[in-house]
């Protein structure tokens, strides 16, 4: 696609450039909605659209008031705190359990591997609304509905499949001879684990943990059912904000979240490269 072959006909040229324009439009469709909210979040007036002052680049048309609102409003600050508490604890639980299970499942001769894998990744398969309703009934009955414990457990459940998949991926094609040779050189099983297996799976564990964190941080269906105002997270607050009184503070929050996801994306990409370098895999 980079260079057109010399036998290209004029129609071929036209089609090629038309195609590039179409692709450009599709990329615009993908990225434009995310970009448009950023300037709008600096709007001085409480509208969701560009005011004439903004279009004429008049400084009075811009302000940081919505960011100020976000950083001072106790509703939002509580949400930020809760989001981090819930995401951190559920990430810890899901990363620990998910990594253990991935190690177990990747060992040779594991019985009923496919079935068990299917069960373990079921939280990713079942539609969220059904998981949310099921947990809502169950947690209400055991008095966990509307508690941090309940929300953290629910999020940990939703996040484990991602950890499991990410760690399993690093163990695919894992050379068993590495552990065997370590053992034959006299390393105890624990030592083999920490010196051979841990360095190999670390990128998978970290990227799984990042996925788990983002899953919990972004999760909005289950928290609406299992959580209450006291466990409000950023998505919870955004959802009720959009439903009830929509204010441009939501745009400020959305812009901040977009910047955070850009950072996450960079982390994941760096990890992926590191993993490939470590294992000597080159993508062409």
């Amino acid at each position, binding site marked *: *696609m*980079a260079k057109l072959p010399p036998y290209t006909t004029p129609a*071929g040229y036209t089609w090629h450039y038309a195609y590039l324009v*179409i*692709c450009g439009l*599709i*990329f615009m469709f*993908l990225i434009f*909605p*995310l970009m*448009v*909210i950023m300037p709008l979040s600096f709007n001085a007036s409480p509208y*969701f659209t*560009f005011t004439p002052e903004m279009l004429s680049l008049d400084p009075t048309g811009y302000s940081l008031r919505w960011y100020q609102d976000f950083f001072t409003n106790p509703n939002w600050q509580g949400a930020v705190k809760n989001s981090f508490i819930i995401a951190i604890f559920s990430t810890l639980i899901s990363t620990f359990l998910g990594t*253990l*299970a991935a190690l177990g*499942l990747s*060992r040779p*001769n*594991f*019985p009923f591997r496919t079935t*068990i*894998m299917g*069960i*373990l*990744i*079921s*939280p990713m*398969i*079942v*539609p969220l*609304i*059904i998981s949310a*309703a*099921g*947990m809502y*009934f*169950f*947690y209400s009955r055991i008095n966990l509905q509307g508690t941090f414990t309940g929300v953290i*457990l629910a999020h*940990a*459940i939703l996040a*484990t499949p991602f950890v499991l998949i*990410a760690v399993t*991926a690093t163990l695919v094609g894992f050379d068993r001879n590495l552990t065997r040779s370590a053992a*034959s050189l006299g390393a105890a099983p624990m030592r083999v684990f920490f010196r051979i297996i841990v360095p190999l799976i670390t990128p998978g564990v970290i990227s799984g943990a990042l*996925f788990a964190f*983002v899953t919990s941080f972004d999760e*909005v*269906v289950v928290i609406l059912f299992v959580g209450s105002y006291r466990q409000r997270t950023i*998505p919870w607050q*955004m*959802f009720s904000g*959009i439903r009830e009184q929509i204010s441009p503070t939501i745009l400020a929050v*959305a812009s901040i979240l*977009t910047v955070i*996801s*850009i950072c*996450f*994306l960079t982390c994941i990409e760096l990890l992926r490269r590191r993993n490939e370098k470590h294992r000597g895999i080159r993508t062409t």
Partner: protein
Amino acid sequence: MRKINNINNNQEILTTADGVPLKASLNRALRRERNISLLLVTPLFVFVLIAFLFPIADMLFLSVDNKIVVEKLPRTVPLLADWDETGTVLPDEQIYKALVQDINAGTVDKTILRLGRRLNFEQGGMSSLFRRSVRKLKRLKEPESYKAATIRIHRKWGDLATWRLIKRLSGKFTPTYFYSAVDGGVDKAGHFVRNPENQRIYLKLFVRTILLSLLITLFTIILGYPISYLLATLPTKLSNLLMILVLLPFWTSLLVRTTSWITLLQREGVINDLLVWIGVVDNAHRLTMIHNQIGTIVAMTHILLPFMVLPLFSVMKTIPPNYMRAARSMGATQFRAFLRIYLPNTVPGIGAGCILVFILSIGYYITPSLVGGTSGTFISNLIAYHVQGSLNWGLGAALGTMLLMFVLALYVLYDKVVGLDNIKLG
């Protein structure tokens, strides 16, 4: 670690250094290995089982669970077994006495009103019947005839339909929630009948959910195919850069993307403003693009597009460019070469992407509820409504069961086409 004891060659059984037969020793080692593997998986397995699968199974059970009638009317229900519900005679005095005792017993902790609410899902007016009865029966002191007194309190107790309903629902399990979920009910003889055309909502909503999801899937192919092709054929450096444009929306919060579309599509939004400014649309007749099906389709196509691009991209990456060159060299036009060579090779990717997008789309809740208005909502929104709003949990569970079965069937299909093991992240 284990040395084979080969010193004595006459010995038939190979043993380890400590004299255990090699076969047994190996088996033991393998068993230990397997036990360790199982031990590693057990914590997560138990966690998922208790905190996820059990709650879901428990909820699905609500869709057939009906023990409330037997529980709240423990004296009445056994007596009703002998009453002929097809006849035209009301139950006798004994049953009315049992009913009064049951209601009075349930009044103490007010739980009897729950039964009224349950019966109200099947037939209107039941809730108020029970509320009134609870109020009045308290003052009822040893009447001459329980039957006459009860009917005086509310004439519905003298209505055969009320008793038929109670008798019909006196089993521990009931299919009635599923009947409601497919827009049906039962006639006097207890057979399934469909509701009149204008009262059918749930099946219509199922059909709408499926149609909209198909449409969204179609749009994601139309938009996803060209850019996947571009990404797969560009040099790695450039395509990695463009890939960010696909991955960024993928990684951005769902609510952020939904918010953006609200900003863009609403009446006073960016797109309408732009159209008015260009002069395509008159200021008084701004387009309504949100809180209807257009809003749902546009926003969800955007949200699910990466799920189509990623599988397509990974398949296209494996197609050698020489195939197309060969076709061209043998005289095929670009279009023909594409149609006959490239497209068939990408079918696995299209299949994987379609099923994935369709599965995700059919269970969507947040976006339809924020931008869908009334015409663009999905079946999930109704499930949520019945769980949190109307408290008709049985019906919510029945709808949920149907949705879950549908999704699981699609996953089996996905497993056959792609294999669940091939799910990749990012």
